[in-house]
């Protein structure tokens, strides 16, 4: 270990603090937006957009995905494809028989 390594670690710690501040601010924003009582469609879009941003910060910096190897992304890509299938296939199937659009709108 040398001084350049020391600099890298110090820089990482600064990044972790910055990410924490961003997560705290975005938590406040998502609660604030919920108190605006937006129509459900806009509320869902806003809440999921903020949650996705916060999740990306956690995955990218705390879980080090920004500097991870390809094999890890391969595992995650497979999980994401299967997850989206699990999420959307039943929803699309049920859309034909449900009042989803009326509810959301």
């Amino acid at each position, binding site marked *: *270990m040398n*001084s350049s*390594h*020391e600099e890298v*670690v*110090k820089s*990482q*710690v600064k990044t*972790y*603090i910055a*990410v*924490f501040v961003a*997560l*705290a601010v975005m*938590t406040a924003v*998502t*609660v604030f*937006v*919920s108190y605006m009582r937006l129509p*459900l469609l806009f*509320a*869902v879009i806003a*809440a*999921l957009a*903020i*949650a996705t941003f*916060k*999740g990306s910060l*956690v*995955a990218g910096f*705390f*879980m080090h995905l920004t500097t*991870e*190897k*390809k*094999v*890890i992304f391969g*595992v*995650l890509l*497979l*999980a*994401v494809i*299967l*997850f989206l299938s*699990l*999420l959307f296939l*039943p*929803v699309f199937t*049920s859309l034909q028989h*449900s*009042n*989803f659009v009326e*509810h*959301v709108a």
Partner: protein
Amino acid sequence: MDAVIRFISKPHPVTGVTNSKLGIWCFLASEVMLFGGLFSAYVLLRTGSLGWPHGWELLNVPLATLNTMVLITSSVTMVMSWASLAEIPPKADPPRIVAEKNFAKYRLFMAATILLGLTFLVVKSFEYAHKFENHHFPSTNTFYAIYFTLTGLHGIHVLIGILVNSYFLFPGSALWRKDPEQFSGRIEAAGLYWHFVDLVWIFLFPVLYLL
């Protein structure tokens, strides 16, 4: 004869990562499917329902916000505990003292992570107790059924994380003196699990409480 798992400290020449890291990511991928299936169930139940209550009408948003902050803070202390093992204090210190200082910082951050995890569970137990006092159970309606299922499963994950972290704070930390590199890898794996639990809550909070 002892079974030896190779490439747990050094990266595997084919994958470029340690087998332990690849293993924990495969496990987390299976966890994505577990929670993904339940999120899918939530979407189906909500869209298929004629009347679905807003989470903020029935649940305690300030307490859940507090818990969100607690879990986010615990993620920072967790990653700091791992970073402490790699940090180097001033060059004047002899290597052994440097290492001991790093280890003391690691223990401090890990203890903070465990305490924050316990705080999350205590706050959650207050929330549950209030619900039970008002006779709101999983069997009350579909909303409470999915609420208790998702938050209960998440709570079990927090509890498991606390147990794993406690092991690495006390008996498991003996490995640090024998093989610091392998110990650091274990803390990274425990951290990945803990951050994943935080990530799940980041989605559960708005979906259950704010919509």
